């Protein structure tokens, strides 16, 4: 229990006749990155909404940071932050003002200082004093994530964090997420991109039709498949490799 930041048991949720979750169980270890992998409509967002107290489950239990989401929603909200599917930023305010607003709402001592720190950390200083409406998709997403980092919540939920981003921005977001986990923050992210789960997650759960059908580390999951055959083929660069090489920002491995 103490080593788990998130604990989910027998979670069920239906909207009228539609069963979205049919008994979901999983646990997320403290300080790890956990990816919920599934296609559109698999129920990923519903799980995130229940864990972030936005939605009530029909049955089953869920606890975040040791607090039951149904019984102690205030304590849960104190421990988490959510970056939803749509960039939840204020378009009219500047990036800095957005961060200060969230810091104030989290009742921190030095909202201006915290905003400055995060602007630096998320490489947003150049854009800090422009209205968010002028930001590109990637910068906007970085601000969105920076807003979730204010107040150092113990558990961060990222619902499809790289949806609609270009490859460069995607890699930036991945870097931020990896840094987070390195600092002991627990991250639960949902994604429909296999490579994203492969890149980031310590554990991956595959959600299909409202049930977790596989859950384990990448090598666990690989064992579920027949052993790899050794074949010799010429490795062609993917279009993504080419794109990143040309713009000269290929991720350092």
């Amino acid at each position: 229990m103490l080593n788990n930041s998130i604990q989910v048991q027998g979670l069920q949720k239906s909207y009228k006749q539609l069963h979205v979750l049919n008994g979901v169980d999983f646990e997320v270890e403290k300080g790890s990155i956990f990816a919920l992998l599934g296609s559109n409509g698999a129920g990923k967002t519903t799980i995130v909404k229940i864990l972030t107290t936005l939605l009530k489950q029909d049955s089953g239990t869920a606890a975040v940071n040791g607090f039951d989401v149904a019984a102690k929603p205030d304590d849960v909200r104190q421990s988490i932050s959510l970056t939803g599917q749509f960039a939840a930023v204020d378009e009219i305010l500047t990036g800095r003002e957005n961060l200060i607003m969230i810091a104030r709402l989290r009742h921190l001592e030095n909202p201006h200082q915290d905003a400055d720190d995060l602007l630096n950390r998320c490489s947003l200083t150049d854009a800090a004093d422009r209205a968010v409406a002028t930001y590109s998709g990637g910068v906007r997403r970085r601000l969105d994530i920076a807003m979730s980092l204010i107040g150092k919540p113990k558990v961060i939920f990222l619902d499809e964090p790289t949806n609609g981003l270009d490859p460069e921005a995607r890699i930036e977001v991945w870097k931020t997420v990896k840094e987070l986990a390195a600092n002991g923050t627990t991250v639960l992210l949902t994604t429909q991109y296999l490579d994203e789960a492969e890149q980031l997650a310590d554990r991956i759960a595959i959600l299909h039709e409202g049930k977790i059908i596989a859950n384990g580390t990448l090598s666990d999951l690989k064992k579920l498949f027949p052993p790899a055959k050794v074949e010799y083929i010429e490795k062609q660069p993917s279009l993504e490799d080419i794109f990143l090489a040309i713009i000269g920002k290929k991720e350092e491995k």
Partner: protein
Amino acid sequence: METTKNYFFSDMSVLLGRSMRHIFRSMDTIITVTITPIAMMLLFVYVFGGAIQTGTDNYVNYLLPGILLITIASGIAYTAYRLFMDMQSGIFERFHSMPIARSAPLWGHVLTSLVSNAISVVVIILVALLMGFRSSAGVLSWLAVAGILALFTLALTWIAVIAGLSATSVDGVGAFSYPIIFLPFISSAFVPTESMPSVVRAFAENQPVTFIVDAIRSLLAGQPVGNDIWIALAWCFGIMLVAYVFAMRVYKKRA
């Protein structure tokens, strides 16, 4: 552990600051909520006013209460708009997953509506003073006027909340305010109701705007208000309560 209740008012003031910035950075809002009513006041006083027989020699005095109500009615359309944009953008989801009271974002908008409408009302009154508006009202009467206008604003704000939360498109979100903006025209706001044909007159004399306008006009003129003020207050309270109950129901369901 801190509780969300202790911070309710500081959270609300943060959210008030946020939406006041929205207002001051939007030329469109400023033009609609102050410049349009001022233009209308100029038009009525200097163009139509000469032909309107009100039985008073100062038409600005006669006109001002109605203009103030139109100002508020066009102001609350933006409350609905801002609420709608918040629902769309997902920023409400972020607020709701934070350790703040669930209703704080909504109350932030309601408070913004009160503050921003108070500012436009003051601006309009200052312009009216330049145009020759004079009042013999004492402090208590002015307080009563402020109270009626605040209550009127709140009543319309809760209607705006319903519209903002349940609208499905940005074009539809302000539509509810047009009939409200139009109501003062079929009331005692611009012309005495005695001059209207009987059916229109029956409507005009029994709709809330007439009672509110008459009450404010009497207060500003330092005359006895009689029953008008109680009927005006009853209308405002009634509309506010009904709209509040519906708005809260929609808020629980939608946000």
